[in-house]
C-alpha cells in the first residue's frame, strides 16, 4: 500500500496514544489524513523521530500510574539509517510504552525517491539483532493493517511496514513549529 494509506489506517486505530511523525512527506500526509494535537510533526532534524519518541515514552513511563500512555513513532527507512544508534539505545532502555513504526519505501521518498540500503538490509533483522524482542512485519501487498495486537504488546515494539515509493500530493503543514509543540504538550497534560 501507499505510505499515506498506512498512515491513515494506523492513525485511525489510535486513541490516547501520542504520535511523533517523521520529517517531510510523512508528516504532511499524516496531517492531511488526520490531524490531532496528539501529533508531533517534525519539520527538520532528520533521524530524530525515534529519539524524541524514546525520551517522551521514558518521561511518561516514569510517572506513577501513567504507564499506560503509549507513544507511537512514525519513522522512515532513510531516517532510521541516519540514526541507527537510536535502535540500540531504545532496545537497551526497554521503554515498555514505545512503538516504533518504520514506514519503509526503500527510498528517501521526500527528496525524490533515491534508493536507500533498506531494499537489501532488512531493518527488522537489524532491530532484532540489537535487542528488540517484539517485532512485527507488514508486507507491501497487505491491504489492511490491523494494529490491535501491536497496541497490546509490551514495548519496545518494532513495526516494519513495507510501503510503495511515492508521495501523495498534499500541501505543507500550515502550523508554526512552536504551535505544534505547545498544543502537543497541552494534549499530554489534558489527558492526565
Amino acid at each position, binding site marked *: 500500500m501507499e505510505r499515506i494509506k498506512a498512515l491513515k489506517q494506523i492513525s485511525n486505530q489510535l486513541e490516547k496514544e501520542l504520535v511523533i511523525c517523521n520529517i517531510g512527506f510523512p508528516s504532511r500526509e499524516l496531517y492531511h489524513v488526520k490531524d490531532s494535537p496528539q501529533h508531533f510533526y517534525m519539520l*527538520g*532534524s*532528520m533521524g*530524530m523521530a525515534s529519539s*524524541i519518541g524514546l*525520551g517522551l*515514552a*521514558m518521561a511518561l513511563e516514569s510517572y506513577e500510574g501513567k504507564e499506560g500512555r503509549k507513544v507511537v513513532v512514525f519513522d522512515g527507512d532513510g531516517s532510521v539509517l541516519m*540514526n541507527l544508534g537510536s535502535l540500540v539505545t531504545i532496545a537497551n532502555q526497554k521503554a515498555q510504552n514505545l512503538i516504533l513504526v518504520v514506514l519503509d519505501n526503500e527510498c528517501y521518498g521526500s527528496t525524490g525517491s533515491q534508493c536507500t540500503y533498506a531494499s537489501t538490509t532488512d531493518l527488522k533483522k537489524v532491530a532484532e539483532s540489537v535487542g528488540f524482542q517484539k517485532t512485527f512485519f507488514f508486507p507491501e501487498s497487505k491491504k489492511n493493517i490491523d494494529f490491535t495486537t501491536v497496541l497490546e504488546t509490551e514495548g519496545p515494539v518494532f513495526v516494519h511496514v513495507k510501503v510503495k515509493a511515492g508521495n501523495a500530493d498534499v500541501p505543507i503543514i500550515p502550523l508554526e513549529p512552536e504551535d*505544534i509543540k505547545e498544543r502537543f504538550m497541552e494534549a499530554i497534560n489534558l489527558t492526565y
Partner: protein
Amino acid sequence: MDSSQAVFDGIKKAGIDFVVSMPCVNLGKLLEMIECDPEIIHVPVTREEEGFGIAAGAYMGGKKPAMLMQNSGLGNSVNVLASLYSIYKFPILMIISHRGTKGEPICAQIPMGEATPGLMDTLKIAYVHPKTPEEALKLIPESWILAELGGAPLGILLDISFW
C-alpha cells in the same frame, strides 16, 4: 569545593531530573553521581545528536533535561540544535567539558576546542563559563531558569582548568 560535586549540586538545585550523556574523562565522577541519583533518569546515548532528540521528547513529557557532553559532541549535534531546538524552542542545559583549552595534551582536541565558542555563537546558543566550583554552583541553576524562560539551550562551558 570539589568541581564535580559543585556541578552535581548545581544540577540538583536546578531541578534537572533527566540527563542524557556521552562521557568525557573529565565528566567521569559527575556521571557516576548522576547514575546513582534515584531522582534522575540517566540515558547514556550512542551519539550526542540522538541525546538531544531524547531530551526534547523528555521535555515534552514534563522533564527538565540536561546533556553531559564533551565539546566535540557539539559537532555531532549542529543540525538537531538548529532544526529542532531552535525552531520549536526547546530548553536544555548543555554541561560541556571543553577540551582543547589550556593544558590540552591531545592535539586532535585543539581544532574543535577552538571552534566551540564560535559554533555556539553561530547557533545563537548562549553560554556561561564558570571558572570555579563556586561559580558553577551559582550559574547552573540560574542558567536553567534562563533556558526554560527563553525556550533555548544554554551551555555551561567547563575548561580543562576547571576540573
